[in-house]
């Protein structure tokens, strides 16, 4: 029997699956805790076991309270986050796609220098740049405006790298030549011919840019001091900080429900788009 089982299609192992289930539990327990905690009132949070429901089921009233607390500031933060994500991550994807395509398909002078500078810059810790960026933006009068968040979000070196690798194989030179012989300009060729072929790579780049913008914390923390410009991340920590210090007004249930609401859109996006980003990532790792 065992000689008939090809090593290429080994039989499933219960032991291995069991070990992986343990890791799966570790991954899921905090999320389960969050989900269960979002159904509890503040009293239940403090008095009932973490991994089971509380005495009352307050899920919907928690959501309502989260959305309406402080004149609906949570919705404002959500709107800000969406704005930063749409303009920031959208713009970052566009810039990275165009630049990756340019680097892959045109052999212009200075191409290697661009690569060297990018590589060097990626090694510099992003947060190390934050303080000087803040001082610069403050001199330019950009702090406490949406631009302070959007402009730095527009650069994604990882996205550029991904699109560069992807464009090298995905767009054949012959096709570009054919478009040129037909008299199409370079920019038009990019938009009409190349963009469609780059789609899986673009989805991957966009998704990762969305995650980094949606999760952005450090930059808005230093750039913004007006709560009505905060994204969700900074807003939630502000709510959480409310529980300590002078005049503490803990709103644990709202922080927890707000956290859950912050996670949901990204999880849905990843689940729905997994076919795209997984193929895009595989292509990126070939090189």
């Amino acid at each position, binding site marked *: 029997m065992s000689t008939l089982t090809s*090593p*290429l*299609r*080994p039989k*499933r*192992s219960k032991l291995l699956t069991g070990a*992986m289930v343990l*890791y799966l539990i570790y991954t*899921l327990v*905090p*999320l389960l*805790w969050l989900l269960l*905690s979002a159904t509890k009132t503040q009293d239940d949070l403090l008095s009932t076991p*973490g*991994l089971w429901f509380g005495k009352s089921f307050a899920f919907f009233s928690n959501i309502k309270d989260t959305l309406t607390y402080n004149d609906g500031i949570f919705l404002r933060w959500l709107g800000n986050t969406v704005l930063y994500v749409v303009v920031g991550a959208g713009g970052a994807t566009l*810039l*990275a796609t165009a630049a990756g395509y*340019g*680097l892959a398909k*045109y052999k212009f002078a200075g191409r290697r220098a661009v690569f060297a*500078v990018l590589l060097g*810059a990626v*090694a510099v*810790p*992003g*947060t*190390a*740049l*934050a*303080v*000087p960026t*803040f001082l610069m933006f403050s001199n330019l009068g950009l702090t406490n405006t949406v631009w302070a968040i959007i402009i730095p979000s*527009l*650069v994604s070196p990882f996205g550029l790298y991904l699109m560069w690798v992807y464009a090298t194989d995905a767009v054949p030179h012959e096709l570009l*030549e054919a478009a040129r012989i037909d008299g199409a300009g*370079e920019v038009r060729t*990019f938009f009409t011919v190349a963009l469609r072929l780059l789609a899986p790579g673009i989805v991957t780049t966009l998704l990762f840019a969305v*995650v980094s913008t949606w*999760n952005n914390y450090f930059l808005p923390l*230093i750039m913004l001091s007006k709560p009505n410009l905060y994204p969700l*991340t*900074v807003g*939630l*920590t502000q709510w*959480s*900080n409310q529980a*300590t210090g002078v005049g503490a007004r803990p709103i*644990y249930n709202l*922080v*927890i429900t707000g*956290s859950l609401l*912050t*996670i949901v859109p*990204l*999880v849905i996006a*990843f689940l729905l788009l*997994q076919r795209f980003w*997984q193929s895009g990532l595989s292509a*990126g*790792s070939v090189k």
Partner: protein
Amino acid sequence: MAESMAHQSAEQVRPVSAAGRRRRRASQDGKGWIFVGPFLAVFALTFLAPIGYAIYLSLYRNQAFFGGKVFVGIDNYTEALQDPKFWEAFGRVAAFLVVQVPIMLILALLAALAIDSARLHASGFFRIVIFLPYAVPGVVAVLMWGYIYGDNFGLAANLNDLFGTTAIQPLSAHWMLPSIANIVTWEFVGYNMLIFYSALRTVPGELYEAAAIDGAGTFRTIRAVKLPALRGAIVIATIFSIIGSFQLFNEPNILRTLAPNVITTYYTPNMYAYNLSFAGQQFNYSATIAIVMGVITAIIAYVVQLRGSRESL
């Protein structure tokens, strides 16, 4: 222009159409800047300019009483290199890096190998669920774990109640760094797993067939075929993780509200630079700390890359 003409005449023997195409290619290649230019412009504004500005700041010092600034050369750097707070913070992230990064990457590697092995039931389900924490914003992950760690409510308190002890104190001075390491591991195992898994997918099937014909078992195949194929991905993941460790900020900064006596304002180099700027108004010294950390990170990342590529020869 003269050069391209000379080039052409030297190759006159070639068919005209080829020469024509080459000329068209040459003039088109310059147009690559149309596509790369916008990215580079924003890159210059958000990466290069701040680096330059930080270097400029680090060479000056504000005068406390007289106002204005004076050029001090490398004085800020000598101060930083002799600053016990800086070295304490640096030692902490270095210890964090040495322990947390291997644990995280080995877990990610094991998960990737397990999912790729075809011996797992429902491997697609495992892949997506283990990756899921990456989609959770870091801030939310820290808030969530912070509450779980707390002795007010959360699982740490539940466990203590259950066993009738007070032994589990994730937010105490002794356990804080491992507690932070746990959060970072939880967040990033799935991401690294996916990098490794994607690299494994690109191994050609013939290699496995050859290994099978040679009589290699599962572990032999992993050692001889899969690990070499993963080398590049491991080097990249290691570099990203090192950079991430040295940048450690979000987790300690958010947990600070829960444990203000455990986490100091200089718990990590980044927190030190941040608090120097925004609590102490010492922008010049803060920029110096940022540059020193940037240089150290870049050197270590470079060494790892060098070693990684040398071993692959």
